[in-house]
């Protein structure tokens, strides 16, 4: 039974209500003013209290998508990033595990009305027929495009297998804008924004709560930004561990996975640009730290980063464990403030967001901004008030997308020329040639 399944949440709520009912039912039996009876009262109240809290926690976990599955909460019992010797890296770096996820959340605000129900939760088990590893084989992509897809685009659930790191990351999502399916863009390569969750967090929350696909679709329809592909990934590659996008010595090479394996896989599976001019990264909370870090450490892959309510030092706590091999120097290398003070500034643009009231990371964010020097460029978006929550980040998203739009090479549709024939503007010159 899935941690976020409606059945499990329903059973938990029933258990909580039942325990309360039992307490009411048994109430008269423990009405004597004796020690044993008072202890029994306390026990009854305690049980119903614990069950109620558990039900609320499970419900909140589903609502905020902290943990998407039991294995991400408790671990799968084995360390994933250590394949046995001789394991051959998969030739299919991206596996589409779900294509029929319902209309894009937030898409109902679009000028074009779409029918159908709103997807309430990630259909973790809605895998299409086996063998649909290749995007071209996903039903509905090549033929029979529905009205929803044409108006707001499509969200696919994907598994990414890292060719170089051996890391596999499940239940991630990619959003293809409606233009991706239009004939004018049939040969256009789209820019990509890699969107990273916080920790702990399920990537579906980027689709549902932050509504990146819906917001992007609306802004493209309004002409505020140009279409882009959004790859929405879990920032942690070894849940329940918080890997902080670090190449952990003798552990998961999380930075290489997100900065090299993922772009390589996406570039092979989708019609997207290769190279820094067409790639940016955005994240919130832990994802914000990772967005800034991935861009700063890999400026030839990412040209811009948005760090929403991020932090800029290399943290170490109970959820991270020993990420730095016990080396102070290596921890420093993962500290973005230290990097700016001791290493050349990388040629990337970073937008940091925070709030004057409600975000205790504000001073550290401003200090980081203050350390940025050419050729790196820093920008800030500071709200007057807003806590560490989706409501705040939703307010920062439209401006962040406009800021990214100004820095990413656009997908060029085929436009009729004066001579009458079609002519394709090639996308930006790709660094990878």
């Amino acid at each position, binding site marked *: 039974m899935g941690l976020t399944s409606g059945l499990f949440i329903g059973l938990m709520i029933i258990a909580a209500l039942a325990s309360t009912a039992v307490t009411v039912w048994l109430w008269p039996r423990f009405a004597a003013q004796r020690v044993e009876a008072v202890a029994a009262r306390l026990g009854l109240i305690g049980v119903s209290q614990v069950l109620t809290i558990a039900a609320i926690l499970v419900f909140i976990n589903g609502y905020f998508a902290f943990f998407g599955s039991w294995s991400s909460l408790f671990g799968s019992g084995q360390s994933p990033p250590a394949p046995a010797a001789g394991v051959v890296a998969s030739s299919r770096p991206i596996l589409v595990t779900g294509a029929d996820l319902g209309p894009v959340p937030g898409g109902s605000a679009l000028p074009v009305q779409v029918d159908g129900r709103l997807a309430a939760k990630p259909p973790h088990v809605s895998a299409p027929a086996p063998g649909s590893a290749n995007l071209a084989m996903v039903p509905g992509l090549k033929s029979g495009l529905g009205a929803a897809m044409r108006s707001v685009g499509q969200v696919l659930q994907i598994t990414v297998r890292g060719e170089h790191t051996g890391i596999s990351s499940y239940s991630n999502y990619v959003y293809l804008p409606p233009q991706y399916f239009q004939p004018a863009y049939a040969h256009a390569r789209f820019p990509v924004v890699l969107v990273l969750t916080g920790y702990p967090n399920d990537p579906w929350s980027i689709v549902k709560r932050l509504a990146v696909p819906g917001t992007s679709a609306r802004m493209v329809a309004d002409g505020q930004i140009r279409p882009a592909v959004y790859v929405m990934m879990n920032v942690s590659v070894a849940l329940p561990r918080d890997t902080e996008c670090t190449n952990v010595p003798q552990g998961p090479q999380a930075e290489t996975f997100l900065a090299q394996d993922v772009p390589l896989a996406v570039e092979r599976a989708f019609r997207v640009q290769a190279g820094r001019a067409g790639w940016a990264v955005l994240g919130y909370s832990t994802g914000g730290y990772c967005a800034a870090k991935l861009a700063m450490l890999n400026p030839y892959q990412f040209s811009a980063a948005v760090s929403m309510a991020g932090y800029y030092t290399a943290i170490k706590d109970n959820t991270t464990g020993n990420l730095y091999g016990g080396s102070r120097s290596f921890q420093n290398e993962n500290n973005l403030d230290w990097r700016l003070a001791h290493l050349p500034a990388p040629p990337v643009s970073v937008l940091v967001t925070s709030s004057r009231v409600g975000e205790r990371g504000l001073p550290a964010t401003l200090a980081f901004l203050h350390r940025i020097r050419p050729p790196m460029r820093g920008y800030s978006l500071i709200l007057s008030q807003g806590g560490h*929550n989706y409501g705040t980040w939703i307010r920062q998203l439209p401006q962040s997308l406009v800021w990214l739009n100004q820095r990413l090479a656009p997908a060029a549709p085929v436009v009729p020329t004066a001579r009458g024939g079609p002519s394709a503007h090639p996308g930006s010159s790709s660094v990878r040639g």
Partner: protein
Amino acid sequence: MGLTSPGLVVVLAIVAAGLLGAVLWWWPRLAGPGLRPVLARVAALGALQLIVLGLIFVIVNNTAEFYSSWSDLAGDQAGGGAIVAGKYHASSRQAPAPSVAPVTVSTSSGIALPGHRRAAAGGRLQTVRIHGALSGLSIPGYVYLPAGYSDRSARLPVVVAVSEHLDSAGDPYSASRLADAAARQIGAGHLEPLILVVLPAQTGPDDQGCLDVPGSTQAATLFAQDLPQAIGTAYRAAAPAMRRWALLGDSAGGYCALQLAMTNSQNYAAAAVPPGDYTGPPGPAENGGSRQIRAQENLAWLLRHQPMQPISVLFTGPGPTEPFASRARPPMHVGQSGLATGPWRLAGVLDWLGGALRQPAAAVRS
């Protein structure tokens, strides 16, 4: 009272404790039969649940600071702010590095080819300095450009040679001898025209084997990120992602070359190195005092614990090749070759590297 004020926690805690005590104490009063006592029990339990949940929520929210105020919680906050460009403070200690070209050429000389009268019939050899924008390292080296480089428009494959004796003309791994060998093999049609970059085996005071020394010399960053960018900007070089870059190492640069191929296979498709077990970098270890980082620097450990990388490795000359020869599985390939005698000892090795780079990506991966 503010959502995040400490007073709220205290008030809620007192109310919860009081309510719990009251329920326990007046329990018998609600024990009677009939609808009203039952409703009263439900109400008492519900109130207790609510107040305890509220207390937990407020404590958790204060710890993690999810919601900063009641209006934040209710979602009443609206509107964004302004995006402001950060001002670079010229007064700060770290001045920006002056913008330098990634590659500066100091001299350029022709490579003669036996049987040809033109002085540069074999191409040109430049002495250069490469400036790593990310690593901050600036290292001297050589770049060999094949004959006809300036006439063609195609982007050429690149071989990066890592040598201890790049300046001493007598050494087979010296820049001039490597350039001569490459010119001869290209002229004879054995080797596709390529760019040969010859770099020193040590790029900084504590660099051992082109690793990123924690908190110090970022040699891996230089080779994996700066070098492809610099050579790709300054020369018509193929992009590394096209599987058109390879490494060549001598006895001092062998660990460097093999290590880079195994950890940056997205850039380097092949490496030719002297035989060896490669259990650690040459010279004193520079691993930031970390046992785990030292373990990773053992290439045999990498071979056992990371996926097989899509690279071709050639061991040049006779000698031990374990554990590489027996453990490698596709897409990794390991071979071994003898070395020719005479002045062009590395001619065959260059031919092999050229062959590894000529294959389309699909063939290398099969």
